[in-house]
Every structure is written in structure tokens, then in C-alpha cells.
């Protein structure tokens, strides 16, 4: 049976393991340490919140979210950054349950919405989200400026 609970400082090592598994699955580099998670997730002013998903008491995944802000709404939203389910437990509706959990939290605590991103070639995921009633914001492009480019811009200021 599935349960979803909020992670606390005692979960830092478990969370680190799950994050590494997720990064391996996505073939992305990972730098995070246990200290980073303790400092940023479980200090006086947390920068993120994490959920641990368990199946019959065994950890099988995690989700990480933070608060984003919409200036047009004048309201915070829940931004779901990571959802990971171990391969042994996929196809059991755990992703759906995590989104339902966050949707309930959003309704209860007056967040305007739950938001996330999806890769545009991931047709099954897109189909799944559409079935949930999610809106896909097709007219938005995402940009990123990494540290080197940030410095180039910032230096140009002087």
C-alpha cells in the first residue's frame, strides 16, 4: 500500500540516495551533498520541501517542490521540480498520487496552482497530464543563464 509523507532532516541520507538514482536515470550530472540537503531543506528557512513515497513501509521514491510566485495572480503556486519512482514500482499510479497530494495541499493552503515542466517528446507523460486536466503552456519558451554567462553579463555592468 502506498503512503506519502513529508521528509524531515532524518531523511537526508535517504533523499540523497534517491536523488542520485533519479539523476542516473535522467543521465544528468549531480553535485548535491547531504549537507546541502540539510542546510537547504531542513533549516530555519527551507528552500524546498520533499515528500517520501513508501510502498508497504519501504521507500520507493520522492518528490521535491518549492513555492513559486505569479505576479499576475498576486499569489504563490506549488512548483513540482522532481518526481521519482524506483523502477520496481512504476506503473502503480504513484505519480498520479503525488500530484493529487500536492493538488490537495494547494487547495487547502490557497496556492493558485500546481506547476511543473515536461519534456516535449515525452508523449505518454503529456497525455497523462492532459487527462488530469492540466493546461500545457505551449506558447512559452524557457531560457537559462548559467554562471559563466551570468558573470559575463554582470561584469559588463561595471
Amino acid at each position, binding site marked *: 500500500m502506498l503512503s506519502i509523507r513529508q521528509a524531515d532532516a532524518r531523511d537526508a541520507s535517504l533523499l540523497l540516495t534517491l536523488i542520485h538514482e533519479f539523476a542516473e536515470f535522467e543521465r544528468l550530472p549531480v553535485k548535491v551533498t547531504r549537507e546541502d540537503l540539510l542546510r537547504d531543506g531542513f533549516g530555519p528557512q527551507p528552500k524546498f520541501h520533499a515528500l517520501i513515497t513508501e510502498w508497504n513501509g519501504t521507500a520507493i521514491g520522492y518528490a521535491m517542490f518549492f513555492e513559486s510566485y505569479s505576479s499576475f495572480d498576486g499569489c504563490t503556486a506549488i512548483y513540482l521540480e522532481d518526481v521519482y519512482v524506483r523502477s520496481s514500482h512504476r506503473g502503480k499510479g504513484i505519480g498520479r498520487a503525488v500530484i*493529487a497530494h500536492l493538488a490537495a495541499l494547494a487547495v487547502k493552503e490557497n496556492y493558485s496552482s500546481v506547476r511543473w515542466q515536461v519534456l516535449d517528446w515525452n508523449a505518454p507523460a503529456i497525455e497523462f497530464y492532459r487527462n488530469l486536466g492540466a493546461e500545457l503552456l505551449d506558447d512559452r519558451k524557457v531560457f537559462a543563464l548559467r554562471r559563466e554567462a*551570468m558573470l559575463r553579463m554582470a561584469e559588463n555592468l561595471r
Partner: protein
Amino acid sequence: MLTIRAATANDAPLLNTLIHELAEYERLVHETIVTEEDILRDGFGPSPKFRALIAEWDGQLAGYALHFDFYSTFQGRAGLFLEDIFVRAQFRKQGIGKALFKRVAAVAWEEEYFCMRWEVLDWNTPAIEFYKQWGAEFLNEWKAAMLLGDALQAAAE
């Protein structure tokens, strides 16, 4: 002459005006419900949800930028999300947008954010060109999704 400064609680009415002007430019004014009270509560209370910069040209209100933190579990670090950057029509073409953008990049650099991220509407070609010119990476494969209103309520049940 251009000055850029951090917004304070006194700027809530100005920010409200500018946010509504941006919404008009983005053709989203029908969805814009923010009030001055929202801005005061969320930007200038005990734990602010966003920070803002105000640009002035010879003491006149010319534009603003608004940002908040996001987080990467892979990096173990916060990033800076630039939600809004806007220059009023009569003040465009004077480098004010660029100066605002640079100031936000300087904040991100100095405060050791691992990355700065933002979104642009796909019909806004001048903005897209402007960002590419500055070495911004275009995350073309990602689409934003959201649940709100009735769908949010339904998903919660």
C-alpha cells in the same frame, strides 16, 4: 539618467501599476487579478515570496524586474527565477531592459545562485533575440504545465 534600485513597501502601488501594464503587453490582462495588498503582503512581509527592482529614468518610473528562488536537487543549490522584466513603452530603446537584466544577473552572480531561469512568450521575437545574444541557453525541449481552478480541485479528490 537611469537608476535601478531595490523596491520597498512604498513601491507597492508602482509595482501594481507596472504589473498591470506588463499584463496588457502580454495580452493577459483578463487573467490578472493582483492587487496592491497582495504585493505588500507577499513582497514586503516577514518572509517575502519575491524581490523586485525598480528602474527610473530622470526620476520617472520606467520599468521593473521581479524574481524569486527556485531549487535544484541535483545541484543542491538555489537558482534565481526571473518572473517579470518590463520597460514602459515610452522608455524603450534606451538600454533600460538590458541594464535591468544585467542587474538581475549581477544579483544572481553575487548571491551564488547556480543558474538564472526565465520564460518568454514564443511570439516575442525581439526578446528571444535579445536573450540569445547574451549567451542564454534556450531549453527548447521543455514545456510548462499547470493545474489550476476546477482541474486542480478535481485532481485533489
